């Protein structure tokens, strides 16, 4: 068994303008992944500008000085590649995987939109992508049952003014008020080489990548000072908190959430294992006790997971949907009881071993692709300053003991800190 979770080479350099470059060579497939993390997410957004980091991510695909509108997508797909980008509270990432002979194309495209977006950004593009994002909000959050659970949980978990209080998708009102000049300023502040990590993984060597990085990104100017994200505080946060929503949903559903630890800490590793014990698979607590045993929850509806956020205690969320005839109150009480048992009764060695085995497979699946590796390397370089720390996550999970699980459970799953979100079907409350 591998001692590290990352048995591939990692080479790094830093350009004179401050951009960090990470290379992880693997010649086993003729493909290369290019991945950039910009250290800007929705946690940086001031009041009145929620959703701006994500809307900005859309604008990055709409052309830059040397890349006409629509060309970015056409060039990557038209050369055999896959591409996308995502925004979350912590950061924004951009990535493409291509046949290896198109590495230079990807670097050219990324450099052009890092250094040359603002002159190409026009009102028409902003208006169009604002409409697209509003449709994304409708499609993902508003038009599906329970689709807005995450939007409702965040303000219950994090107080007003906390960087995680508002969701990344933002509010319709703020998006409507967005002005072009704000986005131009946003790019100048955050889309600078010294606020980015570039990772290349796959069929390319470090010497070649460093030379190309210098060629395409070396001429970009370092950014000025950037406004720091608000730090936020949970002091004085008094729980428990619960919220009941009457909505167009087909059955009652209950979410239970707790603030735990920031991603990257040993305690967060323990929380990841604990969430797996609690809610992953048919051997999990929730499945055995709520779905199979008490027959209160729909079997395919139970689950628990820890969220990978790094700048504040990240949430652990467990949820279950009621079987016919089961009330939200009964399900909620049972769900809370299962969580409480982690605190009072601990976890067995067999449960720990099951969870660690599942996480081991999950880890090797995540790093089986060059794109998966590139994103993890960018993550560790951006969050912790050292991409090689990526190798510590799997050993971190393996090192978790039943006593460590009992300790974090006692510390973070206290009933008085619990956030509960309940969905009730409209007709049930009418």
């Amino acid at each position, binding site marked *: *068994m591998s001692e590290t979770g990352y048995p591939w080479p990692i080479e790094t350099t830093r350009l004179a303008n401050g951009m960090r470059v990470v290379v992880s060579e693997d010649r*086993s*497939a*003729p*493909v290369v992944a290019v991945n950039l993390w910009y250290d800007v997410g929705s946690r940086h957004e001031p009041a009145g500008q929620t959703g701006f980091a994500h809307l900005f991510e859309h604008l990055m695909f709409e052309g830059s*000085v*040397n890349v006409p509108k*629509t060309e970015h*997508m*056409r060039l990557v*797909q*038209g*050369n*055999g*590649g*896959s591409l996308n980008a995502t925004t979350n509270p912590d950061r924004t990432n951009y990535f493409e*995987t*291509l*046949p*290896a*002979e*198109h590495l*230079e*194309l990807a670097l*050219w495209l990324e*450099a*052009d939109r890092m*250094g*040359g977006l603002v002159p190409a950004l026009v009102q028409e593009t902003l208006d169009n992508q604002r*409409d*697209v994002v509003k*449709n994304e909000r*409708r*499609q993902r959050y*508003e*038009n*599906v*049952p329970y689709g807005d659970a995450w939007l409702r949980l965040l303000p219950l978990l994090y107080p007003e003014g906390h960087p995680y209080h508002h969701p990344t998708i933002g509010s319709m009102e703020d998006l409507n008020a967005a002005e072009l000049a704000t986005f131009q300023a946003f790019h100048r502040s955050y889309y600078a080489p010294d606020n980015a990590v570039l990772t290349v993984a796959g069929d390319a060597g470090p010497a070649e990548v460093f030379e190309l990085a210098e060629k*395409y990104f070396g*001429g*970009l*100017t370092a950014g000025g000072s950037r406004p720091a994200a608000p730090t936020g505080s949970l002091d004085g946060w008094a729980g428990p908190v619960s919220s009941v929503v009457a909505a167009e949903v*087909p*059955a009652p559903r209950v979410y239970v959430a707790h603030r735990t630890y920031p991603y990257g800490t040993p305690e967060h590793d323990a929380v990841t294992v604990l969430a797996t014990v609690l809610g992953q698979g*048919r*051997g999990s607590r929730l*499945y055995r006790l709520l779905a*199979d045993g008490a027959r209160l929850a729909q*079997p*395919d509806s139970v689950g628990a997971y820890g969220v990978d956020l790094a700048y504040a205690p990240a949430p652990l969320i467990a949820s279950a949907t009621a*079987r016919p005839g089961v009330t939200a109150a009964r399900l909620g009480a049972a769900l809370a009881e299962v969580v409480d048992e982690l605190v009072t009764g601990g976890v067995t060695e*067999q449960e720990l071993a*099951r969870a660690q*085995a*599942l996480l*081991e*497979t999950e880890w090797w*699946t995540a790093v*089986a*692709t060059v794109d998966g590796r590139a994103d993890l390397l960018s993550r560790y370089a951006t969050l912790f300053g050292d991409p090689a720390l990526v190798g510590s996550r799997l050993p971190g999970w393996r090192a978790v003991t039943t006593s460590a699980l009992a300790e974090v459970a006692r510390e973070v799953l206290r009933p008085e800190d619990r956030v509960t979100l309940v969905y009730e079907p409209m007709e049930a409350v009418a």
Partner: protein
Amino acid sequence: MTQLIAQRPEPGTPRPYRFPPVVRRSVAGGSVVAADLPGANLAVASLLLDAGGGRETIGVEGVAEVLAKALEEGTAARSAADYAVALESLGTDLSLSVDWDSFSATVQVPVASLPAAVELLAEAVRRPKLDPADIERVRDDEAESLRLYWANPGPRADAVLRGDLFGAEVRHGRPLSGDPRTVGALSVADVVGFHRSWFMAPGTLLVAGDLSRIDLDALGRAAFAGADEASPVVGDPFPAGGRTTRRIVLVDRPGSVQSTLRLGHTAPHRSHPDYVPMTLGAIVLGGAFTSRLNHLLREVRGYTYGIRSEYGLSRRFGRFVTSAGVQTAVTAPALVDAVGEIARTQAEGVTEPELAVARDWRAGQLSVGLQTPRAYASALSTLVVHDLPDDYHARLRESLLHATVEEVSAATAAHLNAEGITLVIEGDAAAIRPELEATGLGEVVVAAI
């Protein structure tokens, strides 16, 4: 001062494309088909049986799915809970999948655990307990699960489109997983009978992993033990047929902030000789991000988060479908635009710049998409289900790269059917019906679902 490089770089030297050698073994009456992935930490094994939705008879649609769920409710050797813990302690779940052509059960584990995982896979698939009380419980759960799923936008529209294209009198005119009502009405005998009829032929074991550390014969013996029925015969493709007039079918979803579009018509089956040009044409129309549909409806109009068109092709039938969610207020103009682009593509064909994107995208994706053991197992499954030669993926790459504008345009002319397309719209009927009627695209009917 920032200095950008204005000149777009030329590509480097292309690396050779290779699909790993396909290893085939005949073991214990069944077939093992494997791909060697030297150095891979994980290995995948997938037991593929000719027991998909297409084998269900009318009135018991969804029985394959219920059986799949019931397989994990205990075996001849151990209880459901013991089974779950034994399997998950190896690092895998039992991933069960039913499509029109096949049933598959898949495990993915660190390579040293593969023999034990395949033993457990076979235990569930070949020797399940199938206790009547468990089956009834699983059936009820599955019916409720479908009820919850059908509360989302999409499943009802899909079912209405399928029924309209193929007719409710054939199995593939009904939903693959059945609907909440049909599944709720299944009997224990239906489920046990489906297992007896279709799960006792050996089938094929697909393996992707580091073969220097895997004994394929031993895995085959474990997977095929006790399975001695003859392999079922695959039927011929159904006649494709197709409507000659367009119609709008409205599925009411009061208060919906978006309308869910499912625009479709029948198409040839998967092995049709036009497969390559036909699917390339669908990419130009609505497969790539810069495709005609997505460009117009998302990037120009801002009507949608995304719209795509594709062929869904199985052994005996196929269909073309365009899918999108559009803002309620723009449902009618979005529909007019979408039908306009489908009609234009059928009438005028494709251009070389558009086709170049489609060709290179699909060819490149053969490399980009094939990195994990699971992806290789899926590629092997394509070979087996459609009876394709071992060098299929290499040949496919060549035929994609050599497809001409004339061939693809001929295929879009022959296989798109803008005049006979069925336009299913799931949305707020009261809000959108008058505008839909005013489009003149076709008669508007409301589906009873």
